[in-house]
């Protein structure tokens, strides 16, 4: 499997690796995927009182494309409002990283992880 330059870059220098306090009320945590399928993405967002994402962190178990997609997702959500972040589409992630068709599911997981993190933050803050 040949990798695109952007996948290689994010894989070699992943952005925003780490963890936020998942019990904090301003933090939303999304965990998607399953170990037996070979991918688990954990994406966390920290949201200010205006509803803007001020920080994001990830940890990913998965192939290089899954790691790159998670890393890119954290970059893209930072600075956006949760509503804007919720509109990020997997197709945009796949396109940005030039993912081949067999790796598109990695971008789907990244989109799911963003949505799951937002949903967690919303439910913690009574915004459902």
């Amino acid at each position, binding site marked *: 499997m040949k990798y695109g330059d952007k996948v290689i870059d994010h894989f070699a220098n992943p952005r925003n690796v780490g963890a936020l306090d998942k019990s904090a009320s301003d933090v939303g945590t999304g965990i998607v995927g399953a170990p037996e399928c070979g991918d688990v993405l954990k994406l966390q967002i920290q949201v200010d009182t205006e509803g803007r994402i001020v920080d994001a962190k990830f940890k990913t*178990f*998965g192939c290089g494309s899954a790691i790159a997609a998670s890393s890119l997702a954290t970059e893209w959500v930072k600075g956006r409002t949760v509503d804007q972040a919720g509109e990020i589409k997997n197709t945009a992630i796949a396109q940005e990283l030039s993912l081949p068709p067999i790796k598109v599911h990695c971008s789907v997981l990244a989109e799911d992880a963003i949505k799951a993190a937002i949903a967690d933050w919303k439910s913690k803050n009574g915004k459902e």
Partner: protein
Amino acid sequence: MPVKLPIYMDNNATTPIDPRILEAMMPYLTGEFGNAASKHHVFGWRAEEAVENARQQVAELIHASPKEIVFTSGATESDNLAIKGVAEAYRERGNHIITCLTEHKAVLDTCKYLEKNGCEVAYLTPDSTGQVGPQQIEQAITDKTILITLMAANNETGTLHQIAEIGRLAKQRDIIFHSDATQAVGKIPIDVEAMGLDLMSLSAHKLYGPKGVGALYVRGRGPRVRIAIQMHGGGHERGMRSGTLNVPGIVGLGEACRLAQQEMDHESPRLSAMRDALQSAIMSRLDHVQINGHPIQRLPNTLNVSFEYVEGEALMMKIKDVAVSSGSACTSASLTPSHVLHAMGVPDELAHGSIRFSLGRFNTPQEADYAAEHIVQAVGELRELSPLYEMAKEGVDMKSIKWRGPVH
């Protein structure tokens, strides 16, 4: 001495050509271009002589008679010819075939094809080391069983089957015994008589020879084994496999067998020493690591390891200067990892984190050290990135989590 990068450690996939083999082939790629079936001029005679010499070399390595060697395009064809050939030729006697879930696709898919054509196939589940025992086979035998096909050595884990014992059983029960010995030939001693084999597949490109050439051993007496022709045509190879012979390829296969025989006695211990050094370097420096395959009854060159909490494809990307394989399958088409590890009961998440190192004639101990160093470092880095490792450290029971898998 610094190691030269990239390092090739995927010799079970294919091997580099040994320069001595290329040298033996060269005349037949150039001046000696004759057709081995041309009976009326010196070009043909010389080609035929080269082919017969190679046939002798192959036969010697496996303790067969040259008349029992049929040249093919590789192990896939040999497996097809053996299994379909027996199923068809012995149809009046029965339709039942016994094999194992860890076989190569060349065997499994041939069996699946035969199931659609009136055969019944028992796919035996191996134990956790990858072995199927003689008792298990005995229990699977029915009065319709015509063929047992069981690989000598597994390509992913290196696990060896107890071929000689199974051969005795097959003989007692008057059942034909085929073995795909593609990975075993040249790495461990093979004796078709002592092992009770009736049919055996091998391939040149796993033996430092060229791709696209292999052989099928077909027992000639005690008793003679019949196979139905799969490739019809000019009646080459005693009618068993038509098609103008690939003379340079066959010469390469012959030379590959000769060299393997000549060098096996010191090459096998050299390989297993390197493999064992690699294994202990990994095991001593990392926790949550598991060896897949039989700890002892294993090819000397093969090491299959699962690294918990990391994914194999990412690992291969991290150690990009060391070419290895993984049992992971991170594609949309198939989320199921290695069928071999799965059959052995290795959990899928561990199969996703498996790496196969397969050493070869051209690897050095320095390369094994380099590989150990880099894999240990890569595992460490990826674990820092792994939410599963984080959870494990926090003491979260992974089994208790309801995972939100992707929607397929």
